[in-house]
């Protein structure tokens, strides 16, 4: 096997690169102001080469943020070329164009170019989800009625915020006057730039120490290495076509049938060490509703993340560097004008749940080929934005509500957790109530709704918020109409729901997408998370595990009997009755 750089030196350089990305993430998290970055960790950091190929990423960042970084750089370089413009030392670029590589508008990227001996050698990049980006209503999620990308907020296409080292004040003034809660958002942006500059400094030092050619060679080797691992894993899957179809809610309360119960279809063609992913069969784009997904920045990340999590599961393979090499064996096609490849200016800001449904559908397609490496269907997420003005000061709070995993070979699904391409953190209740006019009334697991299986699906959560002052909420979710899929005779899981209990006493069920809606003091909104699908025949579940679930009050004795054919009496398994019921006696 030929390598460009001595494998020992390469190991040293790889360690140094990863260290740099981690340092950037560490500092960004600690410096930033809004809870969506510092608590939820909805940010990404990475270094790329001069063409945007990713060399390393921060282990703390969420995959949907670091994954698209190569696309941001490609978008910036493309935009500059169109303008006949060039990167100069001391520039800092701001970019969020969803039709130019960005994941969606609120995920703003800042790129600091790195020069070595007068030549552009790479970029140090941070991305982060910002609380507000000047869209039609407060917050940057739950903007579910934006009619085009212009309604989604400010669009930045390779905007210099520093020009050859000089701060471009007019741009910052535009930001301050167009973004709600500008102090927070601009503070986070400054933190992003500071962290990206540190990465640039460290990367320059590395180039000084080893020379561009050696460092380049080492990361080319690293890309080859990641590619080799992925190809090796793919070639163990039998050649063939694997197809699956799932559905998303869309807009369940909309009279237009073209906006609801929308199919997501994935066909994987495995041949040798290559996989082609085709999304033909997926619903047409929703031209005036923003649940379309950019092909670059969302769909590609969803596909890559799912395939690598299944085929090169880090729990099995250890820490494998995440870089562009991993994605070389994978090609993706989505017909122009479908949900997964919309045409500008179709809106995309609320693409989060559709993208995670793509990830879930990829898993469903490949499941029969690698049944021991997948989970049954996952429960999708929902994001809520609360807002208001407290004592004259506007506030916005975003909360990502967890889903759940399906059952797995030999293991139950993970309960109440972010799923697939999302991996953020919740906000501590004690943090929320200390800083916002909100009270959390409940945060618990749901009971008696788990997807039954030999290995049962993960259980969703209940989270309930009360408004202590008049305010508003927007919700961007999915997974309320269709159940997460059971696998190998496992039962389907349970859908999500959102309930609004008005201070006046009315209780209403809400659809999964709610544009900005005013709430009154005392109104209470409760999110019920979905439960993942079951894995394997429930009547094969070890009766001891069924008993555990009964004792833990996750299921009732009646469910133990009806779903699992296990008879529980007096806090113990009635073995004889269970055998009879299971037809084993």
């Amino acid at each position, binding site marked *: 096997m030929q390598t460009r750089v001595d494998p020992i030196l390469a190991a040293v350089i790889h360690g140094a690169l990863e260290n740099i990305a981690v340092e950037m993430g560490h500092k960004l998290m600690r410096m930033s102001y809004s809870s969506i970055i510092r608590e939820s960790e909805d940010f990404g950091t990475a270094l790329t080469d001069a063409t945007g190929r990713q060399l390393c990423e921060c282990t703390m960042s969420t995959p949907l943020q670091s994954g698209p970084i190569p696309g941001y750089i490609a978008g910036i370089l493309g935009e500059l070329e169109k303008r006949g413009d060039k990167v100069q030392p001391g520039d800092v670029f701001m970019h969020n164009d969803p039709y130019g590589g960005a994941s969606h508008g609120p995920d703003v990227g800042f790129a600091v170019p790195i020069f070595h001996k007068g030549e552009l050698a790479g970029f140090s990049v941070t991305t982060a989800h910002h609380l507000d980006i000047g869209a039609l209503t407060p917050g940057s999620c739950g903007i579910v009625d934006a009619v085009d990308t212009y309604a989604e907020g400010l669009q930045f296409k390779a905007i210099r915020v520093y020009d050859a080292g000089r701060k471009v004040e007019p741009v910052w003034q535009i930001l301050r006057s167009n973004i709600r809660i500008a102090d927070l958002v601009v503070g986070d942006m400054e933190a992003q730039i500071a962290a990206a500059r540190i990465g640039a400094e460290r990367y320059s030092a590395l180039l000084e120490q080893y020379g561009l050619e050696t460092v380049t060679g080492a990361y080319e080797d690293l890309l080859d290495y990641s590619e080799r691992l992925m190809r090796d894993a793919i070639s163990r899957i039998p050649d063939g076509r694997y197809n699956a179809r799932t559905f998303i809610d869309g807009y369940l309360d909309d009279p237009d049938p073209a906006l609801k119960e929308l199919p997501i279809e994935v066909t994987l063609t495995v041949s040798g060490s290559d996989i082609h992913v085709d999304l033909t069969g997926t619903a047409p784009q929703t031209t005036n509703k923003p649940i379309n997904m950019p092909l670059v920045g969302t769909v590609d990340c969803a596909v890559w993340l799912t395939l690598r999590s299944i085929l090169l599961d880090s729990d099995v393979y250890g820490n494998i560097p995440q870089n562009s090499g991993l994605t070389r064996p994978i090609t993706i096609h989505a017909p122009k004008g479908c949900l997964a490849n919309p045409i500008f200016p179709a809106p995309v800001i609320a693409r989060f749940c559709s993208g995670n449904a793509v990830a879930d559908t990829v898993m469903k397609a490949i499941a029969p080929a690698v049944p021991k490496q997948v989970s049954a269907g996952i429960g999708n997420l929902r994001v809520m934005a609360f807002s208001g003005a407290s004592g004259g000061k506007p506030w916005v709070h975003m909360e990502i509500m967890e889903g759940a*995993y399906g059952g797995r070979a030999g293991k139950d699904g993970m309960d109440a957790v972010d799923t697939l391409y999302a991996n953020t953190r919740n906000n501590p209740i004690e943090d929320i109530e200390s800083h916002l006019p909100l009270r959390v009334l409940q945060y618990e697991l749901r009971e008696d709704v788990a997807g039954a299986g030999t290995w049962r699906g993960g259980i969703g959560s209940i989270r309930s918020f009360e408004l202590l002052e008049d305010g508003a909420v927007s919700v961007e979710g999915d997974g309320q109409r269709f159940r997460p899929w059971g696998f190998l005779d496992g039962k389907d899981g349970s859908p999500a729901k959102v309930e609004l209990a008005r201070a006046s006493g009315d209780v209403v069920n809400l659809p999964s997408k709610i544009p900005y809606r005013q709430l009154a003091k005392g109104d209470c909104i409760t999110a019920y998370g979905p439960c993942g699908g079951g894995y394997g025949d429930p009547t094969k579940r070890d009766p001891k595990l069924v008993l555990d679930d009964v004792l833990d009050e996750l299921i009732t004795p009646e469910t133990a009997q009806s779903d699992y054919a296990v008879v529980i009496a007096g806090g113990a398994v009635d073995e004889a009755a269970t055998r009879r019921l299971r037809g084993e006696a």
Partner: protein
Amino acid sequence: MIALGVDVGGTFTDLILADLAKGAVTIHKVPSTPANPAEGVIAGIQGICEIAGIVPEAITAVFHGTTVGTNAMLVHDGAITSMITNKGFRDVLHIGRHQRPQHYSIMQDLPWQNRPLIHRRFRKTVEGRLDAQGAELVPLDEEAVAQAARELGEAGVEAVLIGFLFSYVNPAHERRAAEIVREILPDVFVTTSADVSPQFREFERFTTAAMSAFIGPKVRRYISNLSGELAKLGITGELRVMTSSGGLATPEMIAERPASTLLSGLVAGVRGGEWVGQHAGIDKLVTLDIGGTSADIGIIRDGRLTESDARSAQIAGFPVMLPMIDIHTIGAGGGSIAYLDQGKAFRVGPQSAGAVPGPAAYRRGGTVPTVTDANVVLGRLVPERFLGGRMSLDAEASARVIGELAEKLGRTPEETAEGVLTVLNSNMANAIRSRTVQKGIDPREFTLSGFGGGGPLQAAETAAMLGMTSVLIPPHPGITSAVGLLTADLEYHALRTAFAVKGELEISRLQALYDDMEAELGAIFERDKVPADRVRMLRQADLRYVGQGYELKIDVPDGPLSEESLETVWRAFHDRHRAEYGHAFESSPIEIVTVKVRGLGLVDKLSEPPVYAVSGEPTQVGSGRCVFRVDGNLQAFETPHIERTTLPVDVKYSGPAILLQTDTTTVVPPGWIYWADRYGNVRMTRDN
């Protein structure tokens, strides 16, 4: 005053006996007895007393480092633990922060779901709720608490945690519930979350407290058993146990706060390194303690151990919100295995051959190349003189396994062996960078202290990778942890959540919080019979810019607080923020999140290391071919093997050299100058 330090590790129990008046020191090492660690301790005490020629009764104090609590967490073997919490919040411990530890894994386990500290069936909820300011929204349902306690008692639980939201602002509900439970279940371990760690973030606080409850009964039993055994030996001196923050605590304190022992054993090593450095006149030190499977890194800045911030510490995958020394552990040691992975990348560790089968050189059936084998192939470990000649190494086996790896790599065996060390050292250098460069500290101003079995072998070359020019190897690198036990004071911590914003805060409220904490700690020291003139109170606070989620720890001046004294705090925070992150937000408001007091009760301890006064010529016991990388190329040197204990004080020699002693081998590469200082430390410097 005769003090005994005894540190129980996984493999060995290390002991040091010091006559504090005479400065005489005896050291000893016996195998650990994991089933009942007290047995090894007692055997070790009998042994060391024999060597020192004293009777155990003469020992006036026993200082102890233990891994009982740590191991209970690592192997998940603790008490049947239960919890009483707020209605509506039964599953805070189970949901956690709803984040997966690994991004790219379907098959991973979430420790808090897969290995719960408290099963759901033992988590009871009761009415009662406070708001964020601590005001009561719903009164505590005392009858429900009593009912829960009765049910848990019937279920046979061994520990009960009371954990309510906002107890860090107002612990009244937790305290009242604990009272009720103690009355009903007098023999059960009861603790509250605010007693363990009164800080906001409910998942982390409840988890830390759950850990305390989970390991509590076991740690209590162990300490009480050990006290009994010591008494049987006739030792009436006080027992003091090292805590995760690097201080000592009384058995009563450990019984109340068992979670404070979670890093007991680990911390003692850094303490020992700090003490040695301090006497060598060094206040900027990186300690590198390398064993068979892992390396532990600690940073001493301005003479003080660095503490981890409240949000970074964890054990067995669970977050810990307690004062802890920042020790960075990586899977790199003498037994670390070198291999080409599935993608043909060259890796060293974290898999280790352990003690059995161990490195191929150990003749215990090891067949894969390890760091130790690489050291043998390069001539750095002398086979017939390993561990003072108590064990001989199989050089042929090392050559064989390294040779096999070399063939796969397409390199010579020596290039391969040197590559193993380069990758290992670079892993350690990266770990040190993460604790220095990444926090705005320039490691080049620091000295690297290498100890443990492997530290002295790797220290110089690791230092060189970081541009560090100064290395220190303590006299007894293998028992640095036991030494560390004899150098600490009683140390207790108190903290309160303050949420006070600059410009809006009431100085009198802050002052009252500090007064309250100082009174609390003062009462404990009084109970411990520490005279008032030996008590020190050090104030600190965790600060952040309003809106941030991570705090930085800043010292707060003594005496009455004033606008002026707070001004120094604000200033120090901006400076620290700039140093750590490379940026300060000078015009942003600052918030004091928690206020803290670190109370010290000074105890008699090792005042100075025994003086080392060797002179004359060092004893060279032989020489051998030793391979080093010089200016990018491998070169072989005929290298002297020298008895370390014969090095004369302050006489400088040039490397390369191999220094032999009973507990380890020190490698001095070419380009380094080395000498023994007046305390017997080996010092090395290098021209940069």
